[in-house]
C-alpha cells in the first residue's frame, strides 16, 4: 500500500544518518554540560526582543485579528522588520544568519501571545527558507532569499483535496513542454496563501513513475494561471490565512525547478521533519501562554475562603499540566539541538510534535475549566488558545502519522540491535 511505502521512505532516514549513540559529545574541561533549558546570552536577548514585540504590537490586536481572520499590517511588517523571517538565511543574502534554535525560540515566544502569528513565522523559517537555501541555484537564492527576509511571504503547496496524509498521491501535474513545464491542479489548506508572494509547488512531472515523478517548482503569485481561493473560516488560528491555490495551465521555465527533477518527495519529507519541531515550538508556546494567563487567576480568585489554587484537587491538576508542558518543551528543545548537532532527529521530531500538540490540547482545555465561566468567554484569552490548539494534532503530519513514523523507527532500531 502507499502508506507502507510512504513510511518505509520515512524510516530510511534512520539508516543513513548518524545516530546519537555513534557521535559522542565533547565536554569542556571542568564544566558540567548545561541543562536543555539554559539559554545563552544571545538567546535570552533574542527571546526578550520577541517578548517585547509580542506584548507591545501583537497583544492589543489578538482578539480583533481572530474575529476578522486577518493579520494587521503592523504585525506583518513588524515580524519582517525585526528579523523574524528567514532567521537562518546567510548574511551573504542579507539574512541574520542565525541558528535553527533561534527560530524555535521565536516561534515559541510568539505563540505565547498569538499562535496565528507564530505559524506565519514558522512556515517561512522551517519550510520555505530552508528549502531554498539548501537546494536553490545561485540565481534562485539571489532572487528569493533577500526578499524572504524583507517582505516576501512564501507558502508550501503539498496537500490537495484528495491527498493529505497520503501526500504523494497528489494529482497536480507538471507536463513537460520544450524547456517549460505546464502546471495543472489545485492545492488545499495552504497556510500563508493569502499573504504569499510565491509558492513552493509539489507537482508530478511523470505520474507513471508514481512518487518518483514529484518535483518541486518555485511559482510566483503573479504567474498567469495562479489563483488563490477564498480563505477558510476556521475554528482556530483564524488570523493565519488558509486558502486553496489553483494552477490553471501555469507555465514555468525548467529553471523554476527547485533542486533535482523527480526528487520532490524526498525534499518534502526531509523539510517536514524540521517543520515538526517548529510546530512543536508553537504548541509549547501556546500551552505556556495559556497557562501563564490562568495561574494568576487561580491565585487571585477565592471561593469558600481559600484561593482556588489552594484546593488540593485544583493544585494537583495545575502540577500535572505544568509538568506536561515542561516535558513537551524538553522534547522540542532536544530535537532542535539534535538537528543542530548534525544527529538524526526524525524520531525525536515526530515525538516532539506529537506530544506537544497533545499537551497543548489538554492544557488549554484544563485552563478553560479552571477559569470557570469567564474562561468560556472571549473577554479572557484562554478560549482562543483552546481553539488554536486543536490544529496541532492535525497539520504537518496528523498524530496518527506521527505514531506510525515513530513505530516504524522503533521497529527498525530494534531489528538492527538483534
Amino acid at each position, binding site marked *: 500500500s502507499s502508506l507502507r511505502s510512504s513510511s518505509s521512505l520515512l524510516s530510511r532516514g534512520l539508516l543513513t544518518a548518524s545516530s546519537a549513540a555513534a557521535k559522542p559529545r565533547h565536554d569542556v574541561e571542568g564544566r558540567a554540560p548545561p541543562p536543555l533549558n539554559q539559554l545563552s546570552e544571545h538567546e535570552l*536577548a*533574542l527571546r526578550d*526582543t520577541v517578548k517585547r514585540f509580542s506584548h507591545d504590537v501583537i497583544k492589543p490586536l489578538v482578539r480583533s485579528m481572530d474575529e476578522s481572520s486577518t493579520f494587521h499590517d503592523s504585525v506583518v511588517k513588524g515580524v519582517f522588520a*525585526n*528579523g523574524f523571517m528567514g532567521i537562518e538565511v546567510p548574511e551573504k543574502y542579507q539574512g*541574520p544568519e*542565525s541558528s535553527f534554535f533561534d527560530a524555535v525560540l521565536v516561534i515559541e515566544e510568539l505563540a505565547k501571545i498569538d499562535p496565528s502569528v507564530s505559524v506565519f513565522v514558522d512556515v517561512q523559517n522551517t519550510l520555505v527558507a530552508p528549502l531554498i537555501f539548501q537546494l536553490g541555484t545561485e540565481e534562485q537564492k539571489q532572487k528569493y532569499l533577500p526578499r524572504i527576509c524583507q517582505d516576501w511571504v512564501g507558502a508550501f503547496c503539498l496537500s490537495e483535496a484528495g491527498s493529505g496524509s497520503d501526500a504523494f498521491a497528489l494529482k497536480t501535474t507538471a507536463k513537460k513542454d520544450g524547456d517549460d513545464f505546464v502546471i495543472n491542479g489545485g492545492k488545499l489548506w495552504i497556510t500563508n496563501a493569502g499573504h504569499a508572494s510565491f509558492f513552493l509547488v509539489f507537482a508530478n512531472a511523470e505520474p507513471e513513475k508514481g512518487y518518483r515523478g514529484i518535483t518541486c517548482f518555485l511559482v510566483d503569485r503573479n504567474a498567469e494561471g495562479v489563483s488563490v481561493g477564498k480563505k477558510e473560516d476556521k475554528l482556530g488560528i483564524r488570523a493565519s490565512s488558509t486558502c486553496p491555490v489553483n494552477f490553471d495551465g501555469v507555465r514555468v521555465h525548467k529553471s523554476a525547478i527547485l533542486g533535482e527533477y523527480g526528487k520532490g518527495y524526498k525534499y518534502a519529507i526531509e523539510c517536514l521533519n524540521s517543520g515538526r519541531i517548529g510546530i512543536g515550538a508553537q504548541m509549547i508556546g501556546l500551552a505556556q501562554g495559556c497557562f501563564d494567563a490562568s495561574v494568576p487567576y487561580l491565585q487571585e480568585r477565592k471561593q469558600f475562603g481559600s484561593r482556588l489554587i489552594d484546593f488540593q484537587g485544583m493544585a494537583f491538576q495545575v502540577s500535572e499540566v505544568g509538568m506536561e508542558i515542561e516535558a513537551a518543551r524538553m522534547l522540542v528543545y532536544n530535537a532542535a539541538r539534535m538537528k543542530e548537532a548534525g544527529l538524526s532527529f526524525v524520531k525525536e521530531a515526530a515525538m516532539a510534535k506529537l506530544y506537544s500538540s497533545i499537551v497543548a490540547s489538554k492544557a488549554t482545555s484544563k485552563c478553560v475549566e479552571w477559569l470557570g465561566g469567564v474562561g468560556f468567554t472571549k473577554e479572557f484569552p484562554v478560549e482562543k488558545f483552546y481553539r488554536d490548539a486543536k490544529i496541532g494534532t492535525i497539520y504537518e503530519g496528523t498524530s496518527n502519522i506521527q505514531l506510525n513514523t515513530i513505530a516504524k523507527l522503533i521497529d527498525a532500531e530494534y531489528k538492527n540491535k538483534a
Partner: protein
Amino acid sequence: AEMRVLVGVKRVVDYAVKVRVKPDKTGVITEGVQHSMNPFDEIALEEAVKLKEKKAVTEVVAFSMGGPKCQEVLRTALAKGADKAIHIEIPDADASQLEPLHVARAMRKIIESDKFDAVFLGKQAIDDDANQTGSLLAGMMDWPQALYASKVEPDGKSLKVTREIDGGLDTIKVTLPAVLSADLRLNEPRYATLPNIMKAKKKPLEKKSAKDLGIDLAPQTKMVEVSEPPVRQAGGFVDDVPALIAKLKEKGFIKA
C-alpha cells in the same frame, strides 16, 4: 565634522516587575528578578542613534558602570545601534553602594581620555529616581545641560532642545559639548532586531575597572531603611458639603 556621543545606560529592575522589600529592610529584592535597560536610557540611546542616522552624529558609545551583569544592557545597546560599549566594572559587592556621584566621576574620566561632544542620559533611573548624574557631570565638566528633553535638533555647533518643565515647554540652545537628559516623550525606542543582535556580537565592548581608573567610590550616603509605603486606608462617604467640612474639622485637617 566629528560628533561623538556618550550614552549612559543603567541596568535596573524591569519596569513590569512587582518590586518587593527585603525582609531585613536594607533594600528591594533584586536576586533572580528580571532586569533590563532603564527605560529613559533606552530613549536617550534611541535619540543618539537617530541623530547618527541623520548624519548629525558620527559615533555613539554606550557606557555602563556596575557589576559584571552590566554587559547585558551594553550588548542590548550595541544591538540597538551603538557602535562601541564601555563597561566600568566594580565588584558585585560594591554595586549596591554605587551613587550618581561615582558614575559622574567615571564618565568624566572617560570623557577626558576620549573626546566626546555630548553625553546623553535618561533623566532618572527607575530604581533610585535620583535624577543627579547628568547635572553632577555637567557641573564637573563645566558644560551646559539640557534636561528633560522632549525634542532635540542639531544646530551647527549647538543643540536646540525643547524641555518639558512644570509650566510647559521650554526651548533652549546649548553649545557643545553639553549634557542632555531624555524625558519620556522624546521618542519611541526601536526593538533590537535579530540581524542587529547578530551584528552586535562583533562590536567592541571595552572593560575597565573603576579601581584602575582611580575613581573614588566612597559612599556619600547610607541607606538607613527601605520599607513599603503604608497601606492605603479606605476613604469614607459623606452626604453633602457641610458634612464634609464638619468631618475635616473633626479630623483636625482644618481649623475648627
